[in-house]
Structure formats: C-alpha cells, structure tokens
C-alpha cells in the first residue's frame, strides 16, 4: 500500500527526516515511536502533504503513485487521512458543514454523487455513536472552544466519516485522560478493516495497549533505528529510549 524509500524532509532549511524506509501493507497497524524531536510528527505531516515541510529526497509510493507529488486534498481523496496532534480551530464553519463538504469533495473526486444535508445527517449520526459524541457538536464551529478530548474525538469522527485507506494518527493520545483514550482507541479499532492500514505515531506505549500494532518502529534523529513487533513497545516502556539512541 505504502512504500517509503530514503525519505528526507525538513522545515526552514533544517533536515529532520534523514532517510526513512518503511513499507506498509493493507490490514497492518504500524506504530512509530521515538523521543521528542526524533521526526515522528514530521513524517506524519509530510505524508499528509503539509506545505510547511519541504521534501528533500526519496519517495513514497502509495498504491503505485508518488504520494509526495500530490496536493494534500488529492491525497485525502485517494484515502490518506491525518488525525492532527493539534486539530485546527475554524470559527465560523460548523462541524456539520465542514464534514459534509469534505465527504462530498471526496465523493466527487471518485465520480460519486454528492449527498444532501438530510442524508448526510443519517450517515453522521451513526458515526458519532462510535466516538460517543453528542449531536450538538455538529452545530458548533470546527474545534472552536472544544476541550482537548473533544478535539481528538472530532478527529476520529472525521476519520469515521471519510473512511480512509491509510490513517495516520499523530500523537492522538496526547492530552487525553483514560476514558477519552478508550473512546478514541475504540473508534479507531472499529474502523479497522482488512483493506486499510493505520500508522500510529506516539511517544508513549499507553495508546498501544488499546490499538495493538503489528509493527513498532523507533525513530531517532530522523532515522528508523529499530523495528520489531508489539513487544518492542513494551521494552521501550520499561527501558526508555536512551539505550537505542546510544546504539544508534
């Protein structure tokens, strides 16, 4: 599904990713772990196409196409979804309008008919149950005045509505209490299918108790320094990152 080779990227002329190789197949869950500043979030942003980051080299083939050359909206239309670490507040645009616009833009890109507001309500009501969100959230401005937990749940709601092929969760666990974490993880797990894949970017092992990865990769100083199974996460929890940094 996604083959990343020798990916280098940075921001403001500073190289952050110094050669990433990663291969993801349908149905898999990959966890990207690592200390602060290792490049985890940069990888997530670059895959989603944030123009603030500059790609310096390498490639990311997504279902046979070069992802790095696509506009962010095209990536989304082709099934990439980034759950933001810091979801953006957009005062003046209601959640309902935002979600429906995104849903319809993605449908249009696939040559499908747009869905009218009433039919969309049916779709969204069902998805909202997944993240235990109240309907009143639909009429509020996107993320404006939302608590940290509400913002993260709103990200998963968007994911539930847009049904991506490849979801990238960037520090989705940060700032969540244990109940919110359970709800968010429950939503992600409910959306797992054999034909889609998930990248979980996280600093802590905690989230991986709920979203169990097939592979764990440790990022340090812009490179993957170790890959392993889910037991690697437990080892990191116990030993921290230092032993890997020294080894690298």
């Amino acid at each position, binding site marked *: 599904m996604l083959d990343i080779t020798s990916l280098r990227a940075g921001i403001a002329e500073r190289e952050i990713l110094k050669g990433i190789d990663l291969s993801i197949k349908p149905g898999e869950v990959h966890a990207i772990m690592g200390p602060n500043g290792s490049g985890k979030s940069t990888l997530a942003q670059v895959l989603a196409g944030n123009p*603030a980051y500059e790609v310096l080299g390498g490639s990311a083939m997504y279902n046979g196409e070069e992802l790095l050359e696509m*506009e962010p*909206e095209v990536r989304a239309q082709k099934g990439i979804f980034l759950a933001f670490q810091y979801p953006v507040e*957009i*005062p003046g645009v209601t959640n309902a309008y935002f979600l429906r616009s*995104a849903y319809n833009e993605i449908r249009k890109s696939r040559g499908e008919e747009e869905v009218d507001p009433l039919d969309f309500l049916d779709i969204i009501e069902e998805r909202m149950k997944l993240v235990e969100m109240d309907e009143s959230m639909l009429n509020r401005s996107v993320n404006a005045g939302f608590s940290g937990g509400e913002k993260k749940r709103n990200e998963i709601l968007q994911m539930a509505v847009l049904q991506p092929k490849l979801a990238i969760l960037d520090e989705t666990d940060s700032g969540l209490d244990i109940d919110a974490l359970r709800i968010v993880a429950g939503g992600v797990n409910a959306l797992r299918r054999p034909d889609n894949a998930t990248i979980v970017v996280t600093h802590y092992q905690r989230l991986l108790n709920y979203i169990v990865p097939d592979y764990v990769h440790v990022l340090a100083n812009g490179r993957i320094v170790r890959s392993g199974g889910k037991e690697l996460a437990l080892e990191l929890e116990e030993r921290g990152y230092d032993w890997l940094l020294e080894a690298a």
Partner: protein
Amino acid sequence: MTDAVMARAHSPLDAKRVVTPVAHATRDSRVEGYLKLFDDIGRGHELLWLLKQRRAAIESFGRLGFPTSKDEDWHFTSVAPILERAYVPPVTPSAADSPALTREDVAPYTFEGEWETLVFLNGRYVANLSQIESDAQAYVGPMSDALVDDARAHFFERHFAGVADVGGHSFTALNAAFAGDGALVHVSADTVMPRNIHLLFVSDDAAEGALVSPHNIIALDHHAEVTVVESYVSAGNANYFTNAVTEVYIGDGARLRHYKIQRESPRAYHVGSWYAHQADTCAYEAFSFATGADLSRTNIATLLDGNGSHVSLDGLYLVNGEQTVDHQTSVVHAGESCTSHELYKGVLDGDSHAVFNGKVYVRAEAQKTDGKQSNNNLLLSEGARVDTKPQLEIYADDVKCTHGATVGPVDSTALFYLKSRGIGTSIALRLLTYAFAAEVLEELTIPAVRDELEKLAFERFAVGA
C-alpha cells in the same frame, strides 16, 4: 487601557496605486462649481427655515472646501476621484411615480415579510414602489411628504442639521445644502415597531453624473424600538456620487438597530455619514456592510450623552479590483457607565484598499466606561492594502478600554487542515474567508438581515476565490 496601536500594511505594489494629486486650482474650482450650482437652483417654493439651513450649509461648505490628505481623517483616502467631475442633482422626472423601474426590478433588493419599504430612485422617493404604513405611534415617510404637513415639517425642522456636523464636515455641509429627499422615521414613546423599516436607495443608469443627497432623520422617543435598514444599490453601471446623511436621535431607554448595506455601482462614489445622539439607558446597534462603489466612505459618530447606554458599531467590508473602502467611526463617552463595542472586519482582494479609523473618546466625567474596539483584515492578494488606526483618548480614570487591529493573509494551518480533508484550495479559501466574515455578521440581531448579508458575503467570495 492599552497603548495606542497603529497597524499598517503596505504591499510592494503601493507605488502603482498612487493617485495623481488634484491641483488646488481644480479642487477650489470644484468648490466654486458647487457654490454656483447652489445659487442657480430656484428655491422660491422652499420653507424659510430650510432655506436658512441650506444657506448656512453652503457657506460652511465654501469655508471648509474639500478635504485634503493634510486632514487627519482623510490622510489615507484621497477625494480626488470625486473631484474629477462636476456632479449635479438629478433632474426631477416629470412623473416621479412612473419611472422606468418596476416592482420586479427592485424585488431582489427588498426583504420578504413584514417590512415598511421606502424606495428612492436616484435620490427621489417613488411612492408606487414603496409600501408604508404610518399610524399614531409611528411616522414613516419621505421628506418630500413630511415637509408639506405642518406638524411633520415642524418636527423635521427641529431635527434637521441637529446632530449632523454641518459646520465641521464638508460632505455633510454639501448634503445639507443639496439634500433632495430622504426619510423621516419617528417612533413615539413606548412603541415597539412591529415592522422593520427599509430605506432603499436605488440608482439606475439615469443617475450618470448625478449628485444624490439623501438626508434621513430617525428619531426614537423614550422606550421606543425600531429597526431601520438603509440600502444603497445600483440597477445599472453609472458613475454618480451618493452623499448621504442620517441623523439619529435615541431617547431614554430606546433601542435602534440601524444597518447600512452599501452595494453601489462599481463606478459610483459613496459618502455616507451617520450622526447619533444617545440619551440615558438606550441602545444603538449600528452596522455597516460595504461591498460596492469605486470609492466609499462611511462616517459613523455617536455621542453617548446619557448614563448607562450602549452602542455597538460593527461592520464588514468586502472589496476587490481597484476599490477603496473607508470607515471612520467616532464614539464620544460623555455619560457614566456606558459601553461601546466595535468590531469591523474586512476582506480584500485584487489591488483594493481599505481604511479604518476608529476613535473612542472618554471624557473625564465618563466613569465606568467599557470600551472595546477591534478591526481585523484578511488579505487575499499581494496587491491589497489596509490602513487601520484604532484610537483611544481617555480622560476618565475608572474605565475599561481595549483596542487592536490585525492585517494578514489566510491562516495557512487552517488551509492545510481543510485540504487534508479532501477539500480543494478554492473551496477551502472560500470557506475560510466566509468564516472570517461570518463572525461579525453574527452580531446582527435581525435574522432577515443576517441571512441576506450572509448570502451576499458568500456570493461575493465566489468570484476570484
């Protein structure tokens, strides 16, 4: 209290926007032209008091002349384009009641539902396009009718050039000298008007070269309540000059919602000045929506003369191309425990230019004043330019006042967020621009007006976004 903020944003393209200064000779000769024009108009039929007022006004205009960039309030906006042509009051049609305009023509500009609508075509009241009802509690009618009724004329006399700064503001003086028609709205004490009032000023191609000078008076006796919308629209593409004045009197405990919708012809010039006087515990909600005209200037001044009153001054301007839009507001806190809240937002595209100059004066006796003022601008292009100057002058010591201004492009983080959800750049930009503008439209408390302006704002961004 915060320090004075002066935010300015100039693009590198400023140079090509410099307007050739009009020589003093031209400026002075244009003033002379209007003085002569005043003398040439036969006024034998006019009421004596009005004639006196007009004479005082034209003298004042002659003394003041047209403002130059040396006038602090005109530092960023040049009146030169208005001086390029000698505008003359429109010729009164022989049958004013049967103009080329039909009800269908004005329908797009009117509000549905229970409204009293006064339609003025090229400055002149058109009865058969209007729909008004007056009763003992409220009078709503054109100046031309009011002046032929003794009681109404007397009321008009007492309020004409009362709060308007005829002695100090040249365009206001010019208006008082040439005021052709306009509306009189008088709501009696303890009366809540069941219907909103719409003063609809339409210009068509016959307005080419016209000086249109509406003069409106809105007076609310104590505890009266009414909504008045002034619309300036164009059914053509003429070059004309609207120079409007509205005088507002708000009695104790009264409440006025006063909205302006400026959608003049793209070749028109518009100067609109509102002057309000507020008594005790009253509320004035003034809103200016401006998208039209090549050059427009809105002046809104209110005097909080009583205690415990409120004024909200809000506005939204949306311009592109070579348009200039200028808002000047002035709030004088003279009474105690008054609140003034002001939010102006602007969206600029192309090589357009916006000016905002907001003044809040807090006099020494105006203790417990609560004043908020902000002006936020969104630039959609490199060529757009904003000069914004929120100002506070505080002479009382127990007050709470804040002000600020922002000028900037679309938030790139928000744009990326929308795009990452599959929404293309043009739709995302339109959504963000609309969202920016919608915040201030939420201040409008009349749903019909809010809905209409939301629609107009959204349509405005369909172009060029």
